[in-house]
């Protein structure tokens, strides 16, 4: 390890400052966490948000402190914190957690300029939050074991006994829970509960979509319900964890063709509303959307006129079902999954 002493010392000094600051603020009893930027509760991939934050700070000089966590974890956390939340901005991978916070009335309306940058299909009509990126559900399968004819025509087929022990998912993650939320909205509670019950029998749980894809690649399991970009991301690096994996898009407005919208919103309780609004505006604008196209996230860009990475199957070709993002019910989903014994 080559860490010089001055480097170490400055790191410690920086660290002390970073974690003592909230304490000092709290002890002082004042509610102004000083002018040193905004706090983002981030459930998006750390690397993507870090790239956004770094570019935003570079451009505007506004500092960004990130707290990382899961969609529903941070969503519920903001609800629990209520008006006292230290968060200024909330970013998610999927819509249900945004809907959760919105339902609690904790979002401030977004600036009209921000909303104008995102087509209506990628944001709720309330204007309380907006899509910032999008991702498609896929069935990632082991192409050495499965032919295209073996693939499930619908997500619902994975509940059939024929798929017992053959597919994987990451049920603890917000991604999969968003897919279930879409299923719930599209097919109703009865179908969803039945499907989850069958899933409990059929599937193998992995922690994280990357891990699930890695297992498919390693031949441990035949397929996994994940999002598309894990495969592209790995292919862009070494392909080590995806070389045996191909993606199957369900299409045909199937629940499995669900395109999930990653959301961003400004908390009504924000002490720095202007800076927070600027951040959302920036990531939905040209700079932020460009990072989606050129970076390693391989998520779809949603900004008006913004292009996605050319390697991706175009959004328009995915034949996604129509889902109202603001009505995706994360609470109901976790309850159903808990009832089914998956959580």
């Amino acid at each position, binding site marked *: 390890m080559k860490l010089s002493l001055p480097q170490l010392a400055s790191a410690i000094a920086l660290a002390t400052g970073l974690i003592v600051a909230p304490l000092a603020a709290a002890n002082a009893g004042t509610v102004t966490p000083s002018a040193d930027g905004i706090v983002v509760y981030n459930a998006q991939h750390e690397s993507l948000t870090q790239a956004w934050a770094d570019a935003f700070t570079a451009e505007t000089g506004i500092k960004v402190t990130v707290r990382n966590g899961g969609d529903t974890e941070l969503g519920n956390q903001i609800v629990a914190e209520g008006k006292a939340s230290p968060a200024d901005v909330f970013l998610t991978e999927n819509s249900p957690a945004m809907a959760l916070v919105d339902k609690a009335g904790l979002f401030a309306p977004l600036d009209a300029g921000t909303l104008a940058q995102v087509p209506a299909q990628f944001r709720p009509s309330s204007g309380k939050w907006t899509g910032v990126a999008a991702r498609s559900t896929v069935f990632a399968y082991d192409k050495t074991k499965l032919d295209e004819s073996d693939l499930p025509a619908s997500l619902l087929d994975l509940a059939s006994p024929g798929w017992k022990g053959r597919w994987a998912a990451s049920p603890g993650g917000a991604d999969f829970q968003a897919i279930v939320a879409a299923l719930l909205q599209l097919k109703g509670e009865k179908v969803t509960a039945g499907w989850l019950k069958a899933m409990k029998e059929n599937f193998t749980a992995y922690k994280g979509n990357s891990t699930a894809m890695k297992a498919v690649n390693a031949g441990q399991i035949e397929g996994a319900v994940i999002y598309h970009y894990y495969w592209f991301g790995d292919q862009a690096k070494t392909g080590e964890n995806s070389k045996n994996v191909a993606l199957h898009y369900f299409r045909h407005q199937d629940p499995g063709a669900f395109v999930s919208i990653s959301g961003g919103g400004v908390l009504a309780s924000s002490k720095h509303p202007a800076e927070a609004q600027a951040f959302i505006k920036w990531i939905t604008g040209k700079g932020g959307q460009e990072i989606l196209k050129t970076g390693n996230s391989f998520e779809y860009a949603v900004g008006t006129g913004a292009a996605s990475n050319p390697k991706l199957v175009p959004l328009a070709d995915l034949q996604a079902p129509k889902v109202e993002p603001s009505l995706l019910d994360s609470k109901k989903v976790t309850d159903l999954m*808990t009832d089914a014994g998956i959580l």
Partner: protein
Amino acid sequence: MSWIGLAAVLVSIASLLPLGFIIWIAVQTGWATASVMIFRSYVGDLLVNTMLLVALTVPICIVLAVALAWLTERTDLPGARLWAGLAVAPLAVPAFVQSYAWISLLPGLHGLGAGVLISVLAYFPFLYLPVASALRRLDPGLEDAAASLGHAPWQVFRRVVLPQLRLAILGGALLVGLHLLAEYGLFVMIRFDTFTTAIVQQFQSTFNGPAANMLAGVLVACCLVLLMLEGGLRGRERYARVGSGAAVVPRPFRLGRATIPCLLLPLIIAILSLGVPFVTLTRWLVAGGADIWRFGQIGLALGQTLVLAIGGAAFATLLAIPMAWISIRRPGALQRLLEGCNYIVGSLPGVVVALALVTITVRVALPLYQTLFTILAAYALMFLPRALISLRASIAQAPVELEQAAGSLGRSPVRVLWSVTMRLAAPGAAASMALVSLGIFNELTATQMLAPNGTRTLAMAFWALSGEIDYAGAAPYAVIMVLFSLPLTWLLYVQSRRSAGR
């Protein structure tokens, strides 16, 4: 009673917060809802998993630790000191790093078998340390006496040595059992569900939802069952050494032709518990090359980890002082009660303590929410028993006559404690801090849930990167954790030898 006593009582009451929280939540949730959440098949699965894990891992650890301790302490095994060191060294490898090493060596590893294998490798030193130290303290005269009464060596071992190792074995087994209940990262990596992994998963899905709290309640019940089990088996027995004669230095058992096969045991264990992490980490470091050393991020994470570890250790040790002082100078019913409180809380998994503090601060003590204070308080609660151990030992060695002398010179008890006792007990306090900081250094679950915004400790960074299967990127964090843990582990080793009086 004095201020010191008052302080000890306050610390103990504070330490009961998490337990009180679980009870409060259970009452608030109501039996109808709670029972639906508790008596469901998933919880049954978790219970079976967790019980099997404990029931398999603990006995294997006991057999392994006793065998290793006997080989290193009582036989003429070549390089016994080296093997003794290598039997303690796995403590420097955090359990989730051990798991990461194995999973990247054997990607298909999962389930109960894998859980038991990796848990044994990660936790057997917790049994080896006390057993080896008890073996060193054993009076070999007893073994001679048993032999003179016609007992063959293996009978002597079974009827004389083992019964006297009982307390050490029970204590170590309890520690291993509690770690198994509390561990998160190790089991997530190999896809083995326990209560703790399920609680974290629920937390990640619902923040502080009632389902997570109910699972925590069951987990707490499991911990209490372990505590009672240990207490019951321990009974009232205190195997005080009878008589005062000078102990004879035991004659090492001659292994003779069994030397080579006996060498295999510590060798294989060292390869599995240390060799595998070493090889895997080296492999990822080489594969990752220079790119993975992002010094800015790594330095920041290291700095934050150090601040938390040192701060938490200082806080825990400070809180432990009144407790330790009372247990030495004013032993009695009150002291036992207070100590019992601390002990129970120290046995609670980090995830439960964190869940309690998150909910309490967010609902009733918002100014403390997400502050450095809260996370340090969590660490202090979790590691208070650890801090107590060395502190108590060194206060016991500070002569009470000095305190009395200082008191007779007109100093108040608190000032005496500070200016006399703690000066003399300083080495013990330092050891306490080292032990606690070792725990905090590698802590993951509570840190993730409680850390102030923007915190990213080594463990958190390692966990995030390995979660995205960036195993190479995670390697530097793992290496730093191991490197920083090594001297602390060494200290633990030296201390255990010293406490054995040799």
